[in-house]
């Protein structure tokens, strides 16, 4: 196959397509160039996000001293933690009920329901929750963080569900059968055999859910009550103002957290396959 092409002077490969490599490399550069610019200017000593004035940590200090941003970041982390734990717990249970079983009536409907948040545009869900939660707020007078946590838990469920289900499906049944043969109760089998084997899937699910919750803008923007900004909605509000590298600094920290989580997720996932 690898016959030499005299005209190009390069070995002929069936895998090569003209121009594809160039486009791919340009694509990667374009994907990373804006992010790199953003990160670089977070270290700018000047007030501009376009003119480089030398290196400094100035904007990281100022971001740290920014009470609004810090509050918003804390709120983001609180909501994401609750949502990730809740979504992963219920998704694990749902995954146990929908895998390794003969198809039963309603299974398709269950799949459809679990995947709804992936199909319905965020703005539509956001508007729906705005209306629904406004009713509850009027009826109960409660306007705390629980609304945001409920909304985030719901749209995180399909993301937590996917890796857990994948893990369950690739798991060997023989260990659980052996446990049952040795008179372990179903609960003991679950605690001692299924759960430890499932653990990597659960961790992956929790991290995905956490990142998804942390990133959400649209639903949060519509559902939040006054003074409930998360970091993304706080940042969205800042776009209208004059921008300083402080936003770059906040973004860079945010990016670092996301990338760290995704990296861990990626390696967990890879070890599995």
């Amino acid at each position: 196959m690898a016959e030499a092409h005299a005209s190009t002077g390069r070995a002929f490969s069936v895998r090569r397509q003209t121009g594809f490599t160039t486009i791919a490399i340009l694509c990667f550069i374009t994907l990373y160039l804006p992010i790199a610019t953003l990160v670089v200017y977070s270290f700018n000593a000047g007030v501009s996000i376009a003119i480089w004035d030398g290196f400094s940590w100035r904007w990281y200090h100022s971001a740290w001293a920014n009470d609004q941003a810090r509050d918003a970041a804390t709120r983001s982390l609180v909501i994401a933690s609750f949502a990730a734990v809740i979504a992963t717990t219920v998704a694990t249970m749902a995954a146990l009920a929908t895998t390794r079983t003969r198809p039963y009536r309603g299974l398709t409907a269950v799949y459809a329901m679990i995947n709804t948040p992936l199909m319905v545009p965020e703005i539509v869900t956001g508007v729906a929750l705005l209306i629904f939660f406004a009713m509850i707020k009027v009826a109960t007078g409660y306007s705390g963080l629980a609304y945001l946590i409920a909304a985030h838990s719901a749209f995180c469920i399909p993301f937590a569900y996917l890796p857990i289900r994948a893990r369950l499906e690739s798991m060997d049944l023989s260990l659980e059968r052996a446990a049952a043969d040795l008179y372990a109760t179903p609960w003991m089998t679950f605690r001692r055999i299924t759960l430890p084997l499932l653990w990597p899937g659960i961790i992956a699910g929790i991290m995905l859910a956490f990142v998804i919750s942390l990133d959400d803008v649209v639903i949060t923007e519509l559902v939040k009550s006054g003074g409930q900004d998360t970091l993304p909605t706080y940042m969205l509000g800042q776009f209208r103002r004059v921008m300083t590298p402080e936003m770059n600094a906040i973004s860079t920290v945010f990016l670092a957290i996301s990338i760290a989580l995704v990296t861990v997720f990626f390696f967990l996932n890879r070890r599995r396959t």
Partner: protein
Amino acid sequence: MSLSHAALGELGDAKPAAGAAELERRAMRVRFGLLAPALAILLFAAIGPLFIVLVYSFLTPGPYGGVLWSPSLEGWFRVLFQRDIFDDSINFQDAHLSILWRSVKLSGATTILALIVGFPTAYFIATRPERSRNAWLFLITIPFWTNLLIRTFAIQEVIRNEGLINAVLLKFGLIARPLQLMFTDGAILAGMLYVYLPLMVLPLYASMEKLDFRLIEAGYDLYANRFQVLRRVIIPLVKPGIIAGSILVFIPSLGAYVTPRVLGGGKNMMLGNLIELQFGQGRNWPLGSALSMTLLAIVMAALLVYVRFAAKSDTSGHG
């Protein structure tokens, strides 16, 4: 004796049968118990409220937002039409039409451009040696999981008047004054392409990874040139990936809110922004609800087309 034997046999048969039914019932109860919490949360905070939106779209707008509980088709009427204040004649609502058209046009363009850029990129990754392939894949995955708002912010910094593109062009004397790139349809297009591109590359890669290169070899053996191999062999084989990627880019583009808000400004609205406006300053919840249902209907239609296509390419596929 024979009778008692038969009775015994019957008993013996009936008992496991009853046991199996009992087991089946218990399994069902366990299953229901396991599913209930997830479904309850989804019904409460994702699916159920959609029905409220549907109801609201048939009500009368309240004076300060909210609704009055009297049925009306005005919300749906105003999605596309308006009544002249002076002579009550019915016209198309031009502003809504242009926003609807912009949403469809920009989402379509984003999908096509993402395919043009994403296809070679996915192919490039799929043809790397096994070891480096994961690294390239990881490079695509990272932007996919980083905050959409931050990526929009990053692209804004590149295309704004004092941004990277204008700075470079000015420096080399190619332009005399900064180009106005922000707050245009082009800016929204560039932003959406940038943020949704990984959604095209990942499913494309998934189907290219399984590509059987012996078929491509066969194509060359039969004197096809590179372009013919691409068109007649590779593209048909990865069609499921093309369809999946297109749908994954088209749907979020259609409902995009953040990217048009940041890069398009107040004038270049898309459907998502128009919906939000009705619940904010517009104070017309029924119209906003009707618009939301319209967007949902378009998305569901796109998904149905996808299911059709996917089923078709499954049956007529390469097997």
